[in-house]
């Protein structure tokens, strides 16, 4: 049997979860039969866009919005802190806290 590559948690999701590291150029087949080419290397248990997203589009997982795309994300692209607005704001605040802490 072919190894399962990803999990699509909710039918409304525009993201799927990789189950092991997927390489640029790999293919995954969505439950509706659509084939998605992996755009870049994606680490295990991270999110992959099932179609191209524009900056400002909601990222859907568990059938709910988990964040907003900070930039355009191609189909098969890796979705994570680097391209989600909320995560960027959060990472910035953590990094500021650390700087503040270490300067005292």
């Amino acid at each position, binding site marked *: 049997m072919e190894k399962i590559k990803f999990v699509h948690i909710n039918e409304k999701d525009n993201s799927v979860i990789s189950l092991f590291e997927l390489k640029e150029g790999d293919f995954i087949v969505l439950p509706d039969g659509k084939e998605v080419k992996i755009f870049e290397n994606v680490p295990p248990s991270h999110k992959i866009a099932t179609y191209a997203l524009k900056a400002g589009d909601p990222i859907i997982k568990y059938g709910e919005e988990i964040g907003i795309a900070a930039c355009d994300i191609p189909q098969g692209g890796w979705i994570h802190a680097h391209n989600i607005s909320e995560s960027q704001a959060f990472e910035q*605040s953590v990094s500021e806290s650390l700087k503040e802490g270490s300067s005292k």
Partner: protein
Amino acid sequence: MFKFLGYERQDGSVGIRNHVVVIPTVACVNGVVHSIASKVPGIIPLYHSHGCGRLGEDLKIHARTLVNICKNSNVAAVLAIGLGCEFIKIKEFSEAVAESGKPVESFNVQTDGGSVKVVEKGIEAAQRLLDAASKVRRVEAGLDKIVLGLECGGSDALSGVTANPAIGKVTDWLVQNGGTAILTEVTEMIGTAHILKKRAATPELGEAVAEIVNAQERKTQEVLGEKLAGAIISPGNMDGGMSTIREKSLGCICKAGTSPISELVSYGAIPKGKGLIVMDGPGYDVDSIAGEAASGANLIIFSTGRGNPLGFPIVPIIKIASNTKLYDAMPDDMDVNAGRMLEGVTLQQMGDEIIELTKQVIQGKQSKAEINNHDSCLGLLCTTTAF
């Protein structure tokens, strides 16, 4: 329609286990409780570190939680041991438990001859209570008598991908068949207030649920500072693929499936109705499961990615491993390997497998945590320090 042979209680509830417990009303007599329990096979000690030294909200929380744990449908009879000068008075405690109609006996160490005499009297009382428990009538009951506590502890990146969504299938099955499920761990709902609000049965309830989640967020910020509060999503979570706090929280609340939220209760309070209940409790597992048991949970399903052997003295806990590595590392602690979803088992198949085991455990099959008996003492939610 699924039926099981349960233990009939006078308050209308039906237990899936028939335990006799010995409980201190204050931690000062834990040793007395231990002496009784070690000499009477079959009686379960419910150790805890409370009963005095706290006033206000914490006194209310602890009194309610300890009484309601004794009222749990899995408890047949109760032996209460008091000291005599504690805040939680043995007379009032015993009367409150006896309202449920189950046999209660009690002793006070200061007025019943001291600790050695109370151990002797307690052993005799324990025998009487075990005898009473053995005569409890077995009745055929349906899923409307099941109250399922939902828990996740030692989560990993896969908890919200494999184990928790599969547990959501169990919750949906139970609630659709008239049962009750308790979703708690409010710390792990942060960021989802607006989503839970939409899932409530009425707008008023939606507001109330959103408020406890927002209050928890404010409290987290008070304790950790506004910036560090965000660290509840840790670098480890981030490396594991969680990008936002909301994403992490959604992975937790998906244990509750898709049913509407029918009621909100305080920590350790007994719901009035059935369906999906939200309990205002903490994320810390030991405190959380005690609150669920007090709120009536007669069964708990617990997902874990790192592994946790935690049992609860009166409630069977079914452990769901989120990954195969953990399942293989702790085979005597894990009941189900949801990591098989990474090997081709579908979400529905995994849900069905857990439902099948759940039915067996309801019918009496012991879960791993029950077999191992690696229970903790009762952890109770505290909102302030002791005086």
